[in-house]
């Protein structure tokens, strides 16, 4: 039989090894659906690699796709660290985007160095406030935050659609339900000419550094980790558990809100109801693949982004559905969950139970 024996804290190299093993396992498993679609694995992956890394344009597209994933990945990682199950990054992203559009399309006119910070803060604030609701319901009334955050995703998306068909609709939009364009002074500048890559990436990288220092070097970070390890023990030790949950909820929502700001003010320039192809949900995979570590989130987001961008390009070349990317990403989550066992436990294959008892 198999025995799980608990292990002490894990080294960085072992954590990295486990995540890479999970990613490789997911890529190998994807050979089955690829074969089902009549695509040879070698051809499929070489097209995907080319699509994500084959040219400067491809590479910047991959980085552009990674930008929101870093932020939603951080949002999930911070929340899961405290065992606050925020599955609502998708909705918080839309809330951030909506707020960015609300302040960035002409209500306020100011030079870029004033307006851009306003747009960023508004988006972060909106995302944080959306997550505040489920957090307070959890701490005050004991309402499970998993279900409330999940349901809020649908509510917020409908709210966005309502605004885009109503008060925030672009009168020049030829009848399409989309917002007015973001002012030039409110838009995040591009990082390179003729490429779509924008300053959102810098924001995302700074955010991951910030979260790293918060978790590693500050009292709040210590409290977050302590609450996540064991909330009851943390309360006993005098850690303000409720306040910690609220801080984590606000931070997590704000990070997801920033992802929305980047997409709307850095990439698209206006808001539509199909802004996010599930960045909030992919953020869960990013965070888990990263072992909930902020530095890992950046690497995992690059991996997931290259799967998505590579699969899009593979799909255009071969006609094989790009839902393959979602499938690989979903399998990566299941694989990393299983491979995480190797971090927490030594797995021993031992003889039958009676032999074991006899040996003892």
């Amino acid at each position: 039989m198999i025995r799980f024996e608990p292990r002490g804290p894990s080294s960085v190299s072992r954590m990295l090894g486990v995540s890479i093993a999970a990613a490789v396992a997911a890529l190998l498993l994807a050979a089955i659906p690829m074969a089902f679609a009549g695509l040879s694995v070698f051809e499929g992956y070489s097209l995907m690699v080319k699509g994500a890394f084959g040219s400067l344009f491809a590479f910047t597209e991959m980085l552009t796709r990674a930008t929101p994933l870093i932020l939603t990945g951080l949002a999930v990682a911070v929340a899961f660290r405290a065992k606050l199950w925020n599955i609502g990054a998708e909705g918080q992203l839309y809330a951030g985007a909506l707020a960015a559009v609300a302040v960035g399309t002409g209500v306020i006119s100011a030079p870029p160095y004033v307006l851009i910070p306003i747009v960023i803060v508004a988006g972060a604030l909106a995302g944080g406030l959306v997550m505040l609701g489920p957090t307070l319901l959890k701490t005050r009334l004991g309402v499970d935050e998993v279900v409330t955050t999940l349901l809020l995703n649908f509510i917020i998306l409908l709210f966005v659609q309502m605004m885009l068909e109503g008060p925030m609709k672009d009168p020049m939009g030829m009848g399409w339900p989309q917002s007015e364009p973001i002012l030039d002074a409110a838009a995040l500048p591009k990082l390179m000419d003729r490429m779509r890559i924008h300053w959102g990436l810098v924001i995302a990288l700074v955010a991951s550094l910030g979260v790293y220092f918060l978790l590693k070097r500050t009292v709040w970070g210590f409290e977050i980790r302590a609450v996540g390890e064991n909330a009851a023990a943390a309360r006993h030790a005098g850690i303000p558990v409720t306040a910690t949950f609220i801080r984590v909820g606000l931070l997590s929502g704000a990070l997801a809100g920033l992802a929305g700001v980047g997409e709307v003010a850095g990439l698209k320039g206006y808001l539509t109801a199909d802004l996010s192809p599930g960045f909030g949900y992919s953020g869960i995979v990013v965070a888990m693949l990263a072992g909930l570590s902020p530095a890992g989130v950046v690497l995992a987001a690059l991996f997931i982004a290259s799967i998505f961008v590579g699969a899009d390009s593979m799909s255009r070349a071969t006609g094989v559905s790009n839902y393959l990317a979602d499938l690989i990403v979903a399998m990566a989550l299941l694989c990393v969950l299983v491979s995480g066992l190797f971090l927490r436990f030594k797995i021993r294959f031992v003889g039958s139970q009676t032999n074991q008892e006899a040996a003892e």
Partner: protein
Amino acid sequence: MTDILDILISANFWAAALRIATPLIFGVIGALVCERAGVLNLGIEGIFTAGAMAGWMAVWLGAGLWGGVLVAAMAGAFFGLIHAILTVPLGLSQHVSGIGVTLFATSLSYFIYRTALPDVSSPPRIEAFKPLDIPGLSDLPFLGPALFQQTPLTFLALLLVAVTAYVLYRTPLGLAIQAVGDNPAAVESQGLSVYAIRIGTVVAGSAIMALGGAFLTMSAFDAFFFGMVNGRGWICIALTVFASWRPGKALIGALLFGAFDAFQVRLQTEVGSFIPGQVFLMMPYLLSIAALIVVARRADYPRALLVPYFRGQR
């Protein structure tokens, strides 16, 4: 005011309420069975999608309607087995595993659908279940049209409520399921396998959930669409708490929910010109959150819910 009364006493209204409630009945029964054994199954949203797709595709390929129902249930059982293995013997996070199963089942369903039908503009329709016209009963005033003009899947859902209640409360198996959800160590000391009971229950519960998805393609819409499940699975998780993990209350909760939804659809035709349609579409989700808040203080969760059990410990 009289308008509202007119709606509430019309048989069509209650027929619609029962129709809307049917997938939720399957979902809530499936979810509460899993949770009674101590396993939260957030795979439900994906299992709905898989059931909808698998059932539809089986019928489309010529398996017949009941063949489709069987295939849907097997698809649900398959994803339930994945969730069960990850969470029961391996003891992994039920939250993350459930979300993983949802992402996996959803993307696999979409991928298979797209691969089988690479370029269709309108989803192919199937000959779905017809309302079951029971001579005599269907002609009863009020009750007849409301109850006896539903498709066979609705009757299957109602039957499942009774069967689940019977199994849970009246059979040794049901007592064992409740016990592994409350006090697994005690079950182990009776010489029963906690793992076997939990895995079996999650697989069965997931098969039941998948029937809720199958209802969508095989009774309600006659075709498969992307995003057609649209949060129904999550609503079922909320309704499970609302129903205090009891099959009878689950039926009442799902019916109330269906009635409210049918009511707001009718209200929409009255006042739809003043209020944007999205407000009405939000209602089911808002109502689910409200239902959670109402029962939060006195929710009596199965005591071992979310707690992995490891043999030989404690």
